[in-house]
Structures are given as C-alpha cells and as structure tokens.
C-alpha cells in the first residue's frame, strides 16, 4: 500500500517533468516530489535508497534537476536548457519506474560510509556530466542561430560572449563532476580494500569506469588548447554522457562485473 503510494508520487514527478516543457515551474514541483520519494523510500527501507537501477536512476534524475537550477541562473535565456533538463529527467524517471526495486536488507559489507559516499558521489557526478551534455546540445542548437541573428542572441548578448558563457558553464559542470567522480573512485577503492582486500578489480565495470575517467581527463586537458574550444567541446560533453550511460546501465545490465544489477 505504502509502496503503491510512493510509486504514485514518482509517476506524478514524471508527469510534472513532462509538463514542465510547457510550464517551466512544474520542473521544480517534479523535483520536490522526487526528493519526497527518496526520503520516504529511505524511511521505508531504513537506509539510503541507493542500491539497484530503480533507486539510483531516481537519485540521478533528482540530482540532474537540482544541479540544473544553479546552472540555469547563469543563463540569460534558460528556457531551452531547462527544456532539455525536463526531457532528460522525464526519460530517466520513466526508466526508473520500469526498473526493479531492491527492497531486501543490505548485506553488512554495504553498510558503510565508504560505500554510501561512493554511490552518492558517482551519481552526483553522472548528473553533472548530464548537465554538461545538455549544455553541449544547447550550445550546438543555439550557436548556429546566434551566428545568423546578426551576432545577437535572444538574450541580447553578442554571439561570442554567449558561446563562451555556455561553454564555460559546461566546463564547470565537467570539472566539478570530474572531482566528484574521482572522489567516488577513491572512496570505492578504499571500500573495496576494506571489504574484499583489493582496491582494484579487472572487470568490465572498472575498465569502463577508467574509460569514463580517461575521457573527462581528455576533455579537461583538451580545453587548454584553443582548437578544441567551441563545438568540439560541446560534442565531447554529449559523447561523454553517452559513455556515462553505457558505464552505468550498459555494463551493469549486459556484462558480468562487480557492479552487475
């Protein structure tokens, strides 16, 4: 009964994210509902609801919507960016609703600060990488328009100023995401050492995690060279999030690894 009520809350958050395409403030209602859902589920389970695809998808979605708020405040014309965020949040919420819930008590090795921090930081970083991808898409969609409109975009800024501001926001999202992701990997290593005696395992998940970390290392270094600024960075933000999705869902669902669902 209680679980059904929670699923209704999640279904409403999905609807609000979707309707936010027409009425922007509804995205915030969707976010509030999802936060209520996460806290209620945590209270029901007696632990952080961060195990399995259902709970992690909900947490990632709420993180995307929450992180989008400060980023949108730096944009003069934020409606297209927030539309991208609403669509992304609605899609991931829909996936979460169809994914299996993990309701069993946690094994004792998972009841530790290191594991909880590892997961929380990983999904917060994924959310920031999603923000960078949405900003990348926003940049690609609008930059052509801004060029055509006689060097002026809808917000009244010059096209080049607008471009560097959007690109700078994408860079900030990646830099903070990279920091959280690195911290998550370090915490995961500490936890694995304490739980299983090794900080590293050669499994597809660890390999894809390294690919993801290497990709964003490439992004941050490439940005130091002028040739890569602008569209290449926007494309890299989008490709990076595709790697995130495969590392998170693809590897866990398709390959046998230490993080299989």
């Amino acid at each position, binding site marked *: 009964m209680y679980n059904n009520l929670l699923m209704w809350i999640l279904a409403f958050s999905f609807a609000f994210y979707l309707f936010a395409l027409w009425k922007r403030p509804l995205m915030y209602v969707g976010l509030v509902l999802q936060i209520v859902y996460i806290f209620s589920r945590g209270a029901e389970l007696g632990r952080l609801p961060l195990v399995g695809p259902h709970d992690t998808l909900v947490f990632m979605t709420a993180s995307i919507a929450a992180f989008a708020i400060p980023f949108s405040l730096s944009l003069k014309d934020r409606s297209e960016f927030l539309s991208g965020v609403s669509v992304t949040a609605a899609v991931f919420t829909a996936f979460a609703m169809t994914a299996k819930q993990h309701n069993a008590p946690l*094994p*004792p090795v998972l009841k530790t600060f290191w594991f909880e921090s590892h997961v929380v930081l990983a999904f917060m970083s994924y959310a920031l990488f999603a923000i960078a991808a949405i900003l990348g898409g926003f940049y690609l969609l609008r930059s052509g328009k801004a060029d055509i409109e006689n060097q002026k975009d809808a917000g009244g800024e010059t096209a080049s100023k607008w471009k560097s501001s959007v690109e700078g926001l994408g860079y900030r999202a990646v830099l903070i995401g990279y920091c959280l992701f690195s911290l998550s990997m370090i915490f995961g290593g*500490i936890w694995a*050492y304490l739980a299983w*005696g090794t*900080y*590293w395992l*050669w499994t597809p998940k660890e390999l894809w995690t390294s690919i993801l970390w290497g990709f964003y290392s490439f992004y941050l270094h490439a940005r130091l*060279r002028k040739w890569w600024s602008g569209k290449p960075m926007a494309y890299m933000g989008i490709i990076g999030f595709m790697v995130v999705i495969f590392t998170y869902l693809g590897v866990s669902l398709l390959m046998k690894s230490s993080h299989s669902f």
Partner: protein
Amino acid sequence: MNVFRHITNFFFSLRTTLWLLGLMLLLMFAGAFVMPGSKEFQMLHSIPLFDWLKNQNLDITWWLWGLIGILAVMTVNTLFCSVESIVKKSKVTQWLLMISPQIIHIGFLFMLFAHLLSAAGASQSQAVAMEGTVVKLSDNATSMRIKDINISLDYHGYVTDWKVGVEYISEGRLFHEDIIRPNTPSVLRGFNINVKDMRAYPSEAVLLQINREPGALWALIGGVLFMAGIITLILLKIRMEK
C-alpha cells in the same frame, strides 16, 4: 642536439598528452570488448598482472601491453609538463593556483606507481574454513587458525552481521589475535584477510579471501593528493570568479 630537442619538445607538449590520452582511451575501449569474451581474464585476480600477462596469448593481452607502454610515456610527459609549469609560473602571485594541478598530477603518478607495485606483487587466494581450521599464508612462515565464527541472521534469514575470531601462529607459537568483521579485515605482515562469503547451516563456515596488495598504501596517498589538488583548484576558481 637536434634529436634531443625533438625528444624534449615531444615530452613537454600538451599535444603529446592529448595523443596519449586518446590512444589510452582507444586501447581501453578495445580491451572492454576483448575482456568479456575471454575466460582467461577470470584468472587475472589470483596472480600478479605481470605474471598473468607473461603466460597469456598476445591475442587477448595486446591492448594491456599497449596500455602499459602508453602509461610509461605518459608518466614522463606528466613529469616534464609539471616541472615546466612550476618553472615557468614560479613568479605568479597565485601560488596555490599554479601548484594545485601539479599536485593532481603527482597524485595520479602515485596511483600509477601503486598499480605497478600491485601488478608485480599482488596475490589473491581463497579458503573455506570452519572453527578450528588452520590456513597457511603464502609467506610459508605464518599460519592462521579460525578461533570462532559468529553469524547473526534476522527473522527472514538474511545475514545482518558476522564476527570471525582468528589467531596467528608462527614457529608453533601464537603471536597475534584478531577479529574479522564486515569492512574490518585482519591485516598482518602485508596480508589482508576478509570474509567473502559464509554459511550458517548446518555448521558455520566462511569463505576467506586472503589478499596481498603492495600498492594499496601508495594508491591511498595518490588518492589523497589527487583530491587535495582538485578540490583546491575548484575552490580557487570559484573564489576567482567571485
């Protein structure tokens, strides 16, 4: 002289870093498809990486050899670029802003060193044990005896906690006692002993995992440096914007 200049220019270049990172990504990407298709990789956890590599066919290990080569060149590139950056920017007023990316680099190098040590000397073995079982550790000088096993279950039968008391014996003499709990391994003489799995019925038994990770401490130092560098860098950038 000209060749020397070419070599140093190569190692000082950010373009080299990008090429190396790109090649590293390509090799790992290839490995991500080779690895799940080869059963041989399941053995990789039980022996040091270098020993495993020597005994495997190049058909499945080429990407790992390539990765080791790339990482070796990247180490030199990282050192050159870090030293150059410190020398070039030594007169800047924002000293922390200049040094924090280099701390990140040093942390990264420590982590690489940790992996190198583990690749040369890590080991992993497992043993099923019950109360009274004696397990000989691979240093051939130390034995570990399981003193007692306590497994707590909830009313659904889920394991909620466990406690395994162990005694270490060397030359017939008991010299150390310890307790293994969830996320609290018994660490002695470079060995890290954990409980990987357990059975409560018909008699209590545990599956012990006995690891040696010579790189663990270096990886931790590298991780701490990496994080200190990146957090400092982000905080400074935020302050500069304000």
